[in-house]
């Protein structure tokens, strides 16, 4: 059976991480294994794992290297870890989380410490830009998500660069545009879709709140830096629900494509 690794450190963020890992495992029909990289706080981490009835192991650090190694085996289909140790901590996420997400080419759920995660994900918000890279990564998620009742809301945010050139008759333009957008980027599932205009990161948060989403799934290029991954950065900074990052590399696409 495949595994989802929950990286816990014994902090207050650990429980939400475990919950998110469990929900993710439910989506992927995998089991959860919690891992604590020994840098202290082991007793608390063990206790939290036992309370969640999740298998627990301890490994030796450094943390990032250890987590990368733990995620490497083929049977590991995802990783869940805390964005930061405490609410109000480093923005957009702690260095551990950032270092891990740019390295591991598997789905990684970043869980804010104040996230309240249910046993299963019910409503996932999937922001898509108009690139095949982002939709390709999300398509993998759709295939993994074996539960038929997962409510998927596709969100596309238009900005000055991406707003269509023409809108002849609004009553039909949206219908035609959205039909083609979904056919291109979400052909394998029936999903709801919404379009907004504004700053992508902000609109994603607004849409997630309005829709009651319990997970945001983003395809991305795994490249952070000036003018790169602005949307990922903003979402990680402001999200109070888990954010599942899906590298474009998981569909064999080269990293570095202009995605989020």
């Amino acid at each position, binding site marked *: 059976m495949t595994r989802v690794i929950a990286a816990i450190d014994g902090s207050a963020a650990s429980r939400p991480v475990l919950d998110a890992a469990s929900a993710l495992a439910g989506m992927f029909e995998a089991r959860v294994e919690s891992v604590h990289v020994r840098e202290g706080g082991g007793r608390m981490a063990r206790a939290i794992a036992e309370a969640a009835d999740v298998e627990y192991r301890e490994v030796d650090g450094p943390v990032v290297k250890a987590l990368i190694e733990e995620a490497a085996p083929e049977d590991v289909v995802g990783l869940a870890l805390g964005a930061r140790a405490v609410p109000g901590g480093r923005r957009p996420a702690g260095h551990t989380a950032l270092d891990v997400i740019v390295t591991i080419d598997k789905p990684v759920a970043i869980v804010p410490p104040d996230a309240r995660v249910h046993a299963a994900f019910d409503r996932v918000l999937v922001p898509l830009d108009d690139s095949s890279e982002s939709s390709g990564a999300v398509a993998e998620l759709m295939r993994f998500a074996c539960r038929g009742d997962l409510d998927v809301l596709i969100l596309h945010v*238009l900005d000055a660069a991406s707003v269509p*050139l023409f809108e002849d008759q*609004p009553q039909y333009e*949206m219908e035609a545009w959205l039909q083609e957008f979904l*056919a291109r980027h979400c052909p394998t599932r029936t999903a709801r879709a919404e379009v*907004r205009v504004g700053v992508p990161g902000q609109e994603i948060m607004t849409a997630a709140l309005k829709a009651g989403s319990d997970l945001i799934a983003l395809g991305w290029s795994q490249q952070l830096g000036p003018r790169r991954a602005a949307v990922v950065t903003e979402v990680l900074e402001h999200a109070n629900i888990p954010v599942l990052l899906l590298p474009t590399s998981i569909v064999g696409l080269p990293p570095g494509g202009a995605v989020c």
Partner: protein
Amino acid sequence: MNRNIERPPQATAVRSSPGSAGTSRLLDRRVETVVFDWDGTAVADRQSDASSIKSLVERLCSLGVDLAVVSGTNVENVDGQLRARPDGPGRLYICANRGSEVFIADPRGVRCVFRRTASTQEDAALDAATTATLDRLRTRGLHAEVVSERLNRRKIDLIPDPAWSDPPKSQIDELLAEVETRLGARGVRGLPDVIAMATDAALAAGLPEARITSDAKFVEIGLTDKADSIRWMLSELWGRGIGPGSVLIVGDEMGPLGGLPGSDSFMLVPEAESCAAVSVGVEPGGVPDRVTHLGGGPETFLSLLEDQLRRRVSLEMPVANHEPGWTLTIAGLDTVQERTHEALLTVSDGRIGTSGIPLGDHPSTTPEVVAAGLYDGEDSEERMLLCPVWNRLPLEVSQADSVRRHLDLRTGLLHQEMTGPSGRIHAVQFSSLSRPGHVVLRADGPPDVRLSGRPLFAPVGGEEETVEEGAAVWIRLRAPHGGVVAAVHERELRDDESRRSRLDRFGVYQIDTAGLPAVEPAVRAVSMSATDGFEEMLAAQRTAWASRWEDADIVIEGDEELQLAVRFALFHLMGSVADVGEAAVGARGLTGHAYRGHVFWDSDVFVLPFLAATHPESARAMLEYRLRRLPAARARAALEGCEGARFPWESARLGADVTPHQAHDLAGRIRDIRTGLEEIHITADVAWAAAQYLDWSGDDIFEETRAKELFVETARYWASRISVDEDGRGHLEDVIGPDEYHESVTDDAFTNVMARWNLRRAARAVARPDDPLRLEAGGWLHLAETIVDGYDPTTGLYEQFAGFHALEPLVMRDLALRRPFAADILLGVERVAAAQIVKQADVLMLHHMVPEEIAPGSLLPNLTYYEPRTSHGSSLSPGIHASLLARAGRLDEALEELQIAARIDLDDLTGTTATGLHLASMGTVWQAIAFGFVGLRAHEGRLGIDPHVPPSWGVTEVRIRFRGASVRVHVEPGSFTITSDRPIGVLVGGVELSAGGDPGTRFHLEGDTWEVTT
């Protein structure tokens, strides 16, 4: 830029086995036409038995091959020997008298279809040149004789010796040696010297372009030669949809003879560059590089014909035309762009449209067939009924497969190739323009690939019945009102020699927009198509499309990309509109289901003018759609408390308004849709469309009857809708103009001026002294005078609507945003409504549609004012601006806007091309060129012409029909020429005159004015 769209490949030469005369596979493909020399190629001499040739000719013509004899002799000699009387669909041409005559032979006999007749002076000059040549030879001691005075030529025998009276072609070497010996003995340096004498003699006699030819024994001085024959043939074939790439030329004297060009080499004109060329002669001097030398004489020629016959019998695929500027090629299967490509590759016939899906099934494809005027649903939920799909094969496309689709715009044929592990599969399909509603597909594949199977698929959710009846399969779909029966007949065969499977599939769509159609007519019709066969359907398809292009083509030299984009637009415009009955032309025509097939002003104002000017029958059918819905328009007016007829903004089956009241826009916001209530200019637009049809066609009967009714009813609407204030001025409140960013405005200039035009036009329609409506018309004219139009003579500006100038004065430059863009989406509806940002040409639309209603000289100030304020948020806008900018002489900007308009679908600028092509935008492309750059205008019985074309366009030619005449306007830098099949009334440079005919009337630019060139 759509990177999957390819440029056409170079034409490939014929591949063959040199010296393999007698083998059955002398060419590797089928050809559509064989052009061949007679003496020495088809027959050894005049006494040879030609019965085998006759039999092959008749059989090949029955299978659709055209054959053309090109001979120096007269038709009696050729036909006396050949005696073929083929019955079509292929034709037998006899090009006789060395380029001066063309005959067609069929069961009715042999009839002349072309003759070049020499003038008296030309005949005298030929005699003089001949006499002079004989004299020069005589002075050298050479005895030569004039042996015949044929049409347009004189024939001199250089060896009038009984021993050489009728030498066979196989003895050409000996003949040439004898001639050279005799000439040399008299100090004449071979045949070239004799030709030089004849040429000088012809020049001296006043024939600078005489054609001097020799076959060693004879020298001919003539007005024409075989080059004229081949040119005539290529033009004739092109007029029937056959390009030079599908033609095989066969001769026996392609190479030099005695230092002179062989007589058949004259057929190798530049226009024949992509023809395959073969010699079956001895060719002592070799052949040009582009000619394949087979040798073997008439026996080899017979083998060539037998090979072509076998290919036809075994259902071999016709080869695609690759003429530059006529083909759209999509390479590969791009899963993201696939649906867009399928829309681009739609084939349609005015009645149904079929998307260009690949040969095999793939998750990304969306097979779609739609029918004009057939709807599912009710009222505002009416949408185009998706019809059964006929063009799928039982194959699957995998990642390993190479896919290539090639749309020939000239003939409406969609060619496909798929190459994969199982081998190569070809297909060609079309929707018959000559028999709308009939579809045809031919496929060819490896022997182990099954091509036949389930030939018809119902769309998902369709209420269907499916039955097999004998060889036909049919599906009937019921719509809430009416329905469709699709019937298909196919046959498959395995060809052992080529080791290929082949399939012919015929389909018929019987559509009824009122009741459920019976099945039997469709089954009968498809059986008839199958009986007629692929070749007959193909020939008719080619001819039908070639005929349409004859009156509609636009040539732009100097911009290959634009040339293709323009023809792409015209192709889909022509394919989307029927020319009988009524034509309901939705926003996407027959290329997709977007906009639900509903009819907007797009059709009347942007599509109809092209058809009025090129195929008025289609324009008439579009007007019939509106006329049959006059009762609904009257009812709508009455509902508003008005009189007359008020057409709906958005119309479907019944002509009632089907505009929804709310919708999500692209920003995801729910908006009230007020266009149905307020965009009333549509009523005048329909009347304007009728006027366009009348101006271009001169259809007096329509003017006196149905058009008059339309003008009167629409005028009555305006008369009752316009409110007159206490100062006696007429106003229209709560309207939306073409600029839909601003709603519920008062005195929209476009609406008011169009209403005024409508009133005046209606008054003209009832102007006869005895017309009972004259009194009422007097009221219309008076009202027209009172209408507020927002014009300020001090500025030359028309205020778009009352209060427009007081809005936030935003121009696009201030927003630092690229154009076009949908301003209401990015900036918000409220912001744009409060600003001077304009969605599309509004005031400027008046200068485009009714310039006679507008203050003279007002184009420039209004263009200067409104153009910077226009966001072009509508796909209708760039093309219209291109037209107006061209009229204003701002050619670079005009060209930029035209490029945008022309690429809207090819580059999928809207992201919605997959759901259907933007037919009205395509109409603006034509209008930009015809009305804008070439300055055409049909008005009051005359054709106005005032070209302003970009210098980068070397030659521009526009073909149109004007009042029943076929007209070509050919523009070059500094001049233009009008040719037509009969003189027409034109208005050029402010002068009315009769012009045209053939060779036509030429005008040149004198300063800023066009003047007739004398």
